[in-house]
């Protein structure tokens, strides 16, 4: 395993080896640019193709064709000439395009002439009562365990939420012989009507038939309750029951495992800590980076591709990765760019890949009660701050997420707001009668992933550092 970069600087450094990052690194390296691909996981593939090179699930039908489609891109990246480091956690990136990387407990810095962030998505927070109990996990967590370790639920299991991933996961669990007792669909009924005008575009996307088939497969084997308007997990130190309301009827079922999912949102932490400008996206209900047509951000030299640029799915991510890389090649080696496919063809592919996205975004827009909690429900899992705590702080003067830190430690734990930031923004916006854009977001800080003091102390010194040690 590579544990350090071969060089101090590269033409292009790509961060994240999911669909966008693999495509970007391949394109840049094949054009002759020195390219470094840094990825946090043990193998390439990101979340969608997680463990593609190592999964113990051998029956190819179980994970499905869309999963195995990733093999080709992984192979291309590996033979592209790009240097790939797995288990590399990027903990800092700044405007000088200097990147702090930790591999196996040791850190080093690399410089880039261009950086392409392909940090992907994370699951939207699902702050219901009891969501911190052991036994409550995200659907994505279960899918990660399924893909990388062949693990499936074995005890009483409830899946709750909405969106394509939820149905895909349920189908995969069933194919592998796992247990699902009930699916609670939280899609708001009114969303069907709102999404209708966009349905035609979706029906012509390749996701349409696939989605219908998955839902049919799952419904044949698992009771599905729709129109869920309330949801809570309960138990004493461990999940014991899930309570829900549907059509005015409240029901409680025993459960050992509750898998939650209400879509994914861009993983913005590294980009925000770098100082890249983001805006609130009213349709996708999340922060998205402000980008030009080629994915370039407000910070010179840094582009974002894939779901980190706004949720678009794997097909769109691949194309956005190629677009960002092609733009880097145009800037750094114009002659080499002429050998790549023309930008116009990438843009046409992107239009095709994004077809039907508005339908999905509208249909699966999560309901307010599952985004904006109240009372004792935990908002900040790290510092254990409840919705009531935050509203109390607002009442005595906290105006936004950063000011809130003077009252509560919200967002100051190790997850740095990844699982509370959207909730805090929307909760404070609602309480203060402002828009999320006006309320803003946490100012994020490196290290975006914790490093030990010993690791920082061991960062190699440059000669200039040795001379510059100040005593005073």
């Amino acid at each position, binding site marked *: 395993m590579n544990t350090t970069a071969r060089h101090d600087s590269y033409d292009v450094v790509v961060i994240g080896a999911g669909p966008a990052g693999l495509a970007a690194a391949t394109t840049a390296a094949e054009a002759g640019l020195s390219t470094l691909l840094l990825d*946090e*996981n*043990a193998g390439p593939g990101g*979340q969608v193709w997680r*463990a593609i090179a*190592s999964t*113990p*699930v*051998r*029956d190819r039908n*179980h994970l499905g064709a869309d999963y195995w489609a990733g093999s080709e891109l992984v192979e291309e990246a590996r033979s592209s000439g790009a240097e790939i480091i797995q*288990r590399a*956690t990027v903990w800092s990136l700044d405007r000088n395009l200097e990147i702090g990387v930790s591999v196996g*407990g040791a850190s080093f810095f690399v410089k880039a002439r261009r950086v392409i962030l392909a940090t992907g998505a*994370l*699951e939207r927070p699902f702050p219901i009562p009891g969501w*911190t*109990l*052991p*036994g*409550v*996990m*995200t659907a*994505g*967590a*279960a899918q*990660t*365990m399924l893909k*990388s*370790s*062949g*693990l*499936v*639920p*074995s*005890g009483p299991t409830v899946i709750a939420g909405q969106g394509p991933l939820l149905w895909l996961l349920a189908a995969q669990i069933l194919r*592998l*012989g*796992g247990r699902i007792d009930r699916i609670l669909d939280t899609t708001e009924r009114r969303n069907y009507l709102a999404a209708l005008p966009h349905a035609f575009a979706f029906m012509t996307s390749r996701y349409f038939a696939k989605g219908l088939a998955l839902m049919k497969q799952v419904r044949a084997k698992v009771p599905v309750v729709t129109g869920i308007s309330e949801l809570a997990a309960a138990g004493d*130190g*461990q999940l014991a029951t899930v309570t829900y309301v549907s059509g005015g009827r409240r029901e409680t079922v025993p459960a*050992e*495992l509750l898998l939650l999912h209400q879509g994914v949102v861009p*993983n913005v932490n590294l980009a925000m800590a770098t100082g890249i400008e983001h805006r609130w996206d009213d349709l996708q209900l999340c922060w998205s980076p402000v980008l030009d047509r080629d994915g370039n951000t407000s910070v010179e030299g840094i582009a974002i591709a894939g779901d980190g640029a706004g949720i678009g799915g794997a097909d769109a991510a691949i194309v956005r990765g190629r677009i960002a890389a092609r733009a880097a090649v145009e800037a750094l080696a114009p002659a080499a760019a002429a050998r790549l496919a023309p930008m116009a063809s990438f843009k046409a592919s992107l239009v095709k890949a994004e077809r039907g996205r508005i339908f999905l975004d509208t249909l699966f827009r999560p309901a307010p009660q599952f985004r904006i909690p109240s009372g004792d429900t935990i908002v900040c*899992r*790290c*510092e*254990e701050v409840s919705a009531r705590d935050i509203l109390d702080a607002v009442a005595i003067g906290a105006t936004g997420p950063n000011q809130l830190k003077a009252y509560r430690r919200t967002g100051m*734990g*190790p*997850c740095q707001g*990844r*699982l509370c930031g959207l909730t805090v923004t929307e909760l404070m916006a609602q309480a203060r009668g402002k828009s999320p854009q006006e309320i803003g977001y946490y100012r994020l800080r490196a290290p975006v*992933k*914790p490093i*030990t003091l010993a690791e920082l102390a061991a960062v190699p010194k440059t000669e200039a550092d040795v001379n510059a040690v100040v005593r005073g």
Partner: protein
Amino acid sequence: MFKRSDQDSRPSVRIVVDGAALAAREGDTVSAALLASGRDVRRATAVSGAPRLPYCMMGVCFDCLVTIDGVGNRQGCLVPVAEGMQIEIQKGKREIGR
């Protein structure tokens, strides 16, 4: 809570959790191995001591924090198991300087 698929033929890897041996599989992350074990592997938070298990399994939530080979607060969901790896479940503020 979880069981292994019968398709899984990966070789076994022995790790030690709070002093007791545990058979994981090559390619498991520490968190996956712990969850697959069926043992009580709940950590206690540093803030209130509340019990937690991993939530996201993708490096985001930090609820999988665990001490690995003496180094605390590691994200167990990102670290693959290795033969002989020593795991400690964290109860509260992790002890430093031992």
